[in-house]
């Protein structure tokens, strides 16, 4: 199976599709927030509201077979890759119909069929996995590009620098996407980083690197398309830093009292959905009626996903130890021989 790499700038259909995906992510996460407040979602729930341009700009610039990895803030990546909203919402509710059978939850979505290799909970910990996916591509002579999204907070983890080094040393086909939302939980960049730009860190390892406005979906798409082209055609790694902002706290348990209201309002004034909608309307790519119809359709999708999840069965407890091992050593051990009645 071969795929054409997406163009740096999408056609009108492409732009409408990107706008729809951004709107879907926004509505889906707002509904997830409601489900959490209603007590139906447990654990952590990290919302990416405000970061839709960074997510959709990135994913739309990739081929569907380019392996993608992400952090624990990854509902949007799964939706952008085309995963079933029902299966994602069911995973958030911990149901048997969830995309990972209720094992992963919000932080650990994966859709292998769509080359989405997962959301990971240890900051920076997934970056070497992405390097390994790039390694495997080169080992087999494929032309996929491994793309890994992580935050500026992760860029301070040592293992990320290790990966920059190996990618630069071995010219692996990987794109590092540093989604700089300017806060590592509640700690602002200026209190965590000696230098507030992050892309020069990759550049230090001979990786072509630059920074773009992560609130502008077309700018993100163009930058990621170029980065993917370098990795795919010239077999060189690349790094793009996306400057963006998340509107909500780090997770639902963060009341977000640290960040100034004025700062939040300033960024919301550049809301990626609002600004992109203005572009689409201004260039007659979409009209108000089509937007209303799209939003109604998305509301239906999200309502349906939530209803599906709520009506789905719980995971049978007898399956507790299923899948601990891919190759269990006997029929009794559904996972571990050490787990006895």
């Amino acid at each position, binding site marked *: 199976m071969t795929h054409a790499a997406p163009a740096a700038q999408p056609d009108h259909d492409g732009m409408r599709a990107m706008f729809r995906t951004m709107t879907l992510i926004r509505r889906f996460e707002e509904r997830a927030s409601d489900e959490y407040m209603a007590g139906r979602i447990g654990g952590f729930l990290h919302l990416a509201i405000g970061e839709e341009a960074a997510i959709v700009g990135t994913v739309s610039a990739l081929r569907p077979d380019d*392996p993608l990895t992400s952090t624990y803030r990854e509902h949007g990546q799964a939706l952008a890759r085309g995963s079933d909203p029902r299966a994602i919402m069911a995973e958030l509710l911990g149901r048997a119909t*969830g*995309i*990972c*059978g*209720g*094992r*992963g939850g919000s932080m*650990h979505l*994966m*859709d*292998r069929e769509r080359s989405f*290799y*997962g959301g*990971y*909970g*240890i900051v920076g*910990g*997934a*970056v*070497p*996995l*992405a*390097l*390994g*996916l*790039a*390694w*495997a*591509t080169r*080992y087999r002579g494929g032309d996929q590009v*491994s793309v890994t999204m992580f935050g500026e907070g992760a860029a301070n983890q*040592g*293992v990320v620098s*290790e*990966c920059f*080094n*190996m990618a630069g*040393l071995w010219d692996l086909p990987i794109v590092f996407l540093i989604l700089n939302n300017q806060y590592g939980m509640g700690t602002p960049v200026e209190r965590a980083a000696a230098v507030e730009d992050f892309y020069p860190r990759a550049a230090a390892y001979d990786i072509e690197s630059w920074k773009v406005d992560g609130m502008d979906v077309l700018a993100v798409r163009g930058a990621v398309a170029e980065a993917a082209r370098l990795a795919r055609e010239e077999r060189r790694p690349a790094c793009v830093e996306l400057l963006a902002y998340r509107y909500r706290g780090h997770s639902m348990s963060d009341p977000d009292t640290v960040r100034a209201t004025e700062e939040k309002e300033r960024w919301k004034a550049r809301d990626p959905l609002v600004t992109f909608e203005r572009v689409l309307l201004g260039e007659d790519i979409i009209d108000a009626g089509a937007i209303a119809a799209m939003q109604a359709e998305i509301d239906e999708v999200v309502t349906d996903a939530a209803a599906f999840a709520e009506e789905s069965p719980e995971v049978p407890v007898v399956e507790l130890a*299923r*899948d*601990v*091992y*891919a*190759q269990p*050593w*006997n029929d009794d*051990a559904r*996972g*571990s*021989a*050490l787990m006895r009645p």
Partner: protein
Amino acid sequence: MSDGPAQMTYRDALNEALREEMQRDDAVFLMGEDIGRFDGAFKVTRGLLDEFGEQRVVDTPITEAGFTGLGIGAAMAGLRPVIEIMTVNFALVAMDQIVSNASKIHYMFGGQATVPMVIRMPGGAGHQLSAQHSHSLEAMFTHVPGLKVVVPATPEDAKGLLKTAIRDDDPVIFLESEGLYGKKGPVGGEDDLVPFGQAVVRRPGRDCTVIAHSRMVWVALAAAEDLAAQGIDVEVIDPRTFRPLDLDTLAASVRRTSRAVVVDEGWPECGIAAGVAAHLYEACFDWLDAPVVRVNSADVPMPYARNLEQAAIPQAGDVVSAVHAVLGREAGA
């Protein structure tokens, strides 16, 4: 001259397993520090770079967390990486990759991805390498569901278990012993795989069961000789893998002998011997005539001074004393 099976060192047995599995399956590749041009810190990978090339025998920077994680990602994509961490001591900087990623990916994502990789690393003390280079970390890895943990004691098992590990679909922690690389013994052929989860009786006996793994098997066997001279007949059992653990074979032996000593080069607290002893209490309590006794390294960071180091690691004499204790005999009686 004997026509018996080929004699080979533990080191060369591992090398042969790697070579055979690389010839058999193109998806197998090796990665680690100084494994190519330098032939490996312990020469286990000698000659493999010449035979298989730089694509499949990869020298890495000193970046254990990074290349261990790279191996996990490559395994998720269907390759079969064999990662060499130069010694188990350096695995500590890769623990996040091993514990948070390798062991959990199959479960956490509902079985969508597998991690068919092997992480080889030698460990153990005895060469005056002092506190940071003398670990036996079996217990740390065995603690983690999702990993398989393999501890070969002989050249035959080193080869046969490594071949099994490479063909296994789960992440396998393959713990070699620095003290055994030069050990010679017979090895199996290309198709002789040693299955996981099958303990082996190294020496049959009726008075007491001694459970030991890796280099401690040889310490236990030396102790058994000393005890035999005293008229005490011990059975030495080698679990060979801790995940899976062949509790059936261990428990069957203890039910026959009614006494057990567990020898482990690691530390005593929450260690491998402690875990095995707990299993034996649960499985064999009504058969035991004495408490299970553990023989561990001393509960200290490993000292450098030769005499202190030797005092810290289990010796045959310690095993003899432990057997005396479970038999209710005074030392030297």
